[in-house]
């Protein structure tokens, strides 16, 4: 298995791409996809941390080396993976709502360019 740092770096890169996409893009669909990308980057980091729980613990509680942490902790600390499932569910729901909003914006404005929707001010 690749070391934890690889996953973290990949996750960070993906997240940065997502942020870049949100800030750069004018197309609502692309922004939306970028948000999904950020969500998945976070998911990746969570599962990575979850499967390397011993490393994480020893990083934070320095007195304990990874070898001395009992294996049972590895399996009981699977909550990170459950959490990811939760995020995916929310992301799916969010996608449904978000796409509905985008479609209704398109119907009203005949455009999915977010700069055309600049009425969010007084």
């Amino acid at each position, binding site marked *: 298995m690749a070391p934890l740092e690889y996953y973290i770096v990949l996750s960070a890169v993906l997240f940065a791409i997502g942020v870049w996409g949100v800030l750069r893009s004018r197309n609502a669909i692309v922004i939306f996809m970028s948000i999904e990308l950020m969500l998945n980057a976070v998911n990746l980091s969570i599962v990575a941390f979850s499967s390397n729980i011993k490393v994480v613990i020893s990083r934070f509680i320095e007195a304990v080396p990874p070898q001395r942490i009992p294996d049972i902790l590895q399996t009981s600390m699977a909550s990170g993976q459950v959490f990811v499932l939760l995020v995916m569910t929310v992301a799916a729901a969010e996608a449904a709502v978000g796409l509905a909003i985008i479609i209704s914006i398109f119907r009203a404005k005949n455009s999915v360019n977010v700069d055309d929707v600049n009425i969010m001010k*007084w």
Partner: protein
Amino acid sequence: MEEQIKILVKLVPVFPLIGFLFNGILNRRLPEKTVGFIGSFTVFSSFVLSSWAFLLLIQLPEHARSIQSSWFDWVVSGSFSSAFSFLYDPLAAVMMLVVTGVGFLIHVYSIGYMHGDGGVGRYFSYLNLFVFAMLTLIMGDNLLLLYLGWEGVGLCSYLLIGFWFHKDSASNAGKKAFIVNRIGDFGFALGVMLLFWTFAAAGHPTINLTEISHLSPEILAGGGIVTLITLLLFLGATGKSAQIPLYVWLPDAMEGPTPVSALIHAATMVTAGVYMVCRLSALFILAPVTMLVIAIIGAATALFAATIGLVQNDIKRVLAYSTISQLGYMFLACGVGAFASGIFHLMTHAFFKALLFMCAGSVMHALAGELDMQKMGGLKKYMPYTFVTMFVGTLAISGVPLFSGFFSKDEILYNAFISQNGHPLLWVMGLIAAILTAFYMFRLLFLTFYGKSRIDPEVEKHVHESPKSMTVPLMILAFLAVIGGYVGLPHALGGGAWFDKFLHPVFAGGHGESAAVHHSLGLEYGLMIASVVAAGIGIFVAFMFYIADPERPKRLAGKFPGIYNTLFNKYYVDELYNAAIVQPVIAIGRFFWQITDLRGVDGFANGLASAVGWLSSMIRVIHTGFLRNYALVFVIGVIVLLGYVMFK
């Protein structure tokens, strides 16, 4: 028996209140007849109860004739307390009989007079409210309740003067009455507060009338404060009872319906000041300065108003000035310590002045609302009932012997002469006023009913006697105007001065009848003859002027245009007040409106709003409305926060 009186007395004001609520709420949903019936019947019920209570009262021994009956505690705060309770004693009994009795007759008269007016429901509900407020005023056993009634009658007066509010003159007259009364009421309120304060400082925090009467000799005697209190209270009386300097509202109050003038501005409300002074006689008697002021103002008003009445052409205004003049007599009586005589004149005046006003109303009714006496004349043959009753009223007010006004007026003049507070000069003023009274009343009678008709021919075709609902009350009042004086028949004429004796326990000082004993009968007869002669002179001159030679008044007016114009324009007092008080107050008001309010208060509020607006317009540029800007700010914010957490 006392328990019975308590119940009766408690119920007296309830009926007019029910009538007010009933007529006031249902108003236009009721037919005119029902409204009139309810309005009159409720007051009649009160009259019956008042009479019943009166009959029980006179059976009680003299010292027991002061009965308190309480509905509920009204205001209780610390040591101060005021109950909604009534004081029933001879003075209250007389006032209640006058208010409900004369009030009932005027209600009945109103049914005929107001027939066909759209606002009959409103009219009768105000009238009933007035009777309720007036009863509260005269029955209240403490000053706060008295003040409630005092303001209540003021309100009703305002509402009824401005009853035909679509007329500018009527609504202005209502406002004038209200504002002028406010000045007096302000003094009255200050007087009550000062009184309470003084009593509280002496360890007796009370505004109960009986307690005040008992305690004031002990607490207030000899102090200057009692003079101040009584002067303030008297200021209230000058407003309500239309005395110099606050009398100006009463002539204008004639804009209201005539029965209102009869009830409120002649018989009852305007006598509230006299009642109040009499009710607090124990207090006033302690302040000789105030008594002198009251006597002088009373005599001066009697004379002053009578001179104005000489030349007015508006039939109701003549009666209004006459009312002011007669109220002056009552205050003259109070000022010289003859409180019972004041109340006696109050009662007889209520009879004959209500009668005169209602006769004037009957004349107006016949002449399609004509008020100018120069456009009347010769009505005798058209309106026999009105003529006869008015003649009786005129004889009564002029002080012709055997009529009620003679006895009461003579008693006042007599007391003004012999009382230790009196002075022959006051008597002379009163006597001249009596001559003038006889003159202007007979002038009114002659111009209206005698001589050649000066009526507009178009109107003359429709001249008619008034309906029964109007003439019957006139006849009853005429009857009262004749016999009303015999309850106070003086000893000198073989009577027992029963009225004075009846009221005697209420008043402090024991002036009037007891003082009279020390003087010779010869003086009493002499003064009596003097007032008869005064009435005779007035009537004779009026006859010479308006029957024998109708052109004489015009010639005289032409000879002395200065005097005539001064009198005709009421000594220019309205103009003087307008220039000296009204205009400066308007100027001050304008200053506060234009400068303080519009510039100051509004300026501050508007300035605050525009300052906030300006600040917002500076900040709003960061709200571009572009989604990506917000996202960028959000990301930057997250980075900054994270950086802070990581590198702190």
